[in-house]
């Protein structure tokens, strides 16, 4: 065999070996794609789905929940109503920092049980200071503590949301009733929105959420509390599956002090309007110009 031929042979063997090793190295990817249906892979953006498409998608998602989590759930598509602009206000004088709102969110929105995820973080603040640096969201003692006040923070449903602006694929947007939503089946998981949000309101699914069948809230919607897939971003949706059908957000119902006020900003008789008109309300980080729809106020 000539030297040239031997060299060719060796090169060929090297290339084959390399290709085989590569196929072996990326094997785990195929484990992942084996769990993906072709329909899911090809699914269009939420706003491009026809009513028929949407029905198929919802049925598929319900079946997948059954298969992966063993629970029978109903996933609906609930659209915003005309003449409704949601707003939320929170009374810092009455909030006692019990975190029942955060817990209610955890249950209502089918959050991951292992990390005890919630869209709400409650900060224990120093009396006489608004310096967030003095705040602590990981306190673990009886509440309320003297010399402290409590400030729950969740998505502020900004009217000029920095998060939707940065999304490269329009996977997150503001709906006409003011709620900022994510299409969990369109998000590519770049987490740019998470970097852009000034209120630490977004969460990423670092792993597929874990939740037992009995604990799953079966009343779900596509844009809010259905169980999120791995690798996508999620956020508070003002419980749109409840609020768009006339109910109140889970966090509000759970609050033992009545610190939370929710309603339609366009309805002059609503309690939220009364608060905005009669209390001295403010928003967080107003200087950033995100224009939150979540207001804070003190009673006295």
């Amino acid at each position: 065999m000539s030297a040239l031929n031997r060299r060719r042979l060796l090169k060929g063997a090297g290339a084959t070996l390399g290709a085989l090793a590569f196929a072996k190295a990326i094997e785990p990817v195929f484990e992942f794609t084996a769990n993906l249906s072709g329909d899911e892979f090809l699914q269009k953006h939420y706003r491009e789905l026809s009513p028929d498409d949407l029905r198929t998608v919802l049925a598929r998602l319900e079946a997948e929940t059954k298969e992966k989590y063993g629970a029978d759930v109903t996933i609906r598509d609930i659209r915003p109503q005309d003449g409704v602009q949601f707003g939320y206000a929170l009374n810092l004088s009455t909030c006692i920092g019990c975190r029942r709102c955060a817990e209610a969110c955890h249950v209502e929105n089918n959050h991951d049980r292992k990390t005890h995820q919630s869209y709400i973080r409650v900060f224990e603040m120093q009396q006489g200071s608004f310096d967030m640096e003095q705040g602590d969201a990981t306190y673990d003692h009886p509440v309320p503590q003297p010399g402290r006040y409590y400030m729950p923070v969740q998505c502020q449903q900004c009217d000029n949301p920095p998060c939707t602006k940065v999304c490269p694929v329009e996977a997150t947007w503001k709906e006409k009733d003011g709620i900022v939503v994510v299409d969990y089946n369109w998000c590519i998981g770049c987490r740019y929105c998470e970097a852009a949000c000034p209120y630490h309101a977004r969460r990423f699914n670092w792993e597929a959420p874990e939740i037992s069948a009995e604990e799953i809230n079966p009343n779900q919607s596509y844009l809010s509390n259905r169980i999120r897939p791995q690798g996508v971003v999620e956020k508070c949706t003002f419980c749109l599956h409840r609020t768009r059908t006339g109910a109140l957000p889970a966090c509000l119902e759970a609050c033992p002090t009545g610190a939370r006020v929710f309603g339609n900003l366009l309805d002059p008789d609503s309690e939220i309007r009364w608060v905005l008109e009669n209390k001295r309300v403010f928003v967080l980080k107003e200087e950033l110009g995100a224009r939150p729809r979540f207001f804070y106020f003190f009673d006295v």
Partner: protein
Amino acid sequence: MSRKTTAKESEERPKHWVSYPRFLWRSLALATDGSWAFYAWMTGLTAIALVGANAWAGQVSSGMGVTGMSDHVSWGLYIANFTFAVGLAAGGVMMVIPAYLYHDDEMHDVVIVGELLAIAALIVSLGFVVADLGRPDRFWHLLPGIGRFNWPISMLTWDVVVLNGYLLLNLHICGYLLYMRFLGRKPNPKWYVPFVFLSVIWAISVHTVTAFLYSGLGGRPFWNSALLAPRFLASAFVTGPAFIVLALQVVRRTTSFRVPEGPIQTLLKIMRVTVLVNLFMAGAEVFTEFYTGSSHVAAARYLYIGLHGKTALVPWIWTGLAFNVFAAIVLHTPKLVAKRPLLNLALVLVFSGVWIEKGMGLIIPGFVPSTMHELVEYYPTLTEWKVTAGLWAVGMMVFTIALKVALPIFGGEVGAGERSWKRDDAPDSDPEPAPAE
């Protein structure tokens, strides 16, 4: 990229459909033939790349929980390396400018090294973007036309456009020049000079847009500074030349390609300025943060001296700065520059110094403290280090192969007629290239 030619030309010369495949075939041979040292080098890189690919595959299947990132520090080592690699790609332009704008003939002979570096670095940076995605399977959502491309609103879409555009530009320029040299023909300035000028502007834009990714976020005061883009460019023009000077010396030792001393000296001259500008801007930033002393200083404090007992980045950033200062001293002391090993050490150190300062030193303090002023630190996991090493290994493979193909053709050792290239009809004796529109 198409390598078109006028009808008249193709009548009298061999047809492209004959010679272009031959060009590719010869390139393949060039890419895969080599000494044992070459095979050992490539095998080593392949091994590292495979380890990285395997780690990435594991990350895709079990989720990004295998990284050290969290909702508090939601970008880490990948985005840090992405930023740095974009800078390296932009830095290659520091050869292009002297070669084409100032008609530095010697630089012209080796400018392809800079252009190939840009190609390799861009592949690395795009690799890091993909590695950072939670759902790489949905990558097609980013494709204009098929997906929903949020352009021009999202800065990330701008980045996708400029990075891929810069990649195509460099592929076209290198591919065209090599093919022409291969044919033994004089490159037609019409087919590459306008692209070269465009690539100069484009190089600036890739790094500017990458800086805008961060500086456009009002909720992250550490990044929200107009100085970010200029700083990015200054540091890019440190790392690019440093890498090229090292690469040119390796080429000189391991190949028969003639590497003149002129380009190395020009690049060192450029670095003498950029390394100082980079340090100056770092100083200006530190002053503004610390003298003002407002709550904005928290991130800078975390980076430079630690905050509430959290000091993960402090040793890193000081090491990075020390490397930069060391290189600045060496570069400005002619006696030390003359000592090649010392100079090379300085180049390696300044390269690593910028990697620290513009990588982790830039990305992590954007998240620590978080927007709600919580202090959660970040430590990359083994998976992240493996993927990172793997992507850089891929980059080195691309760069090595590109040089192996390009240098013999560019140096005239290999051509269509296998005749040797005569230096005197090389394009450095081109008529004045037409200015770009």
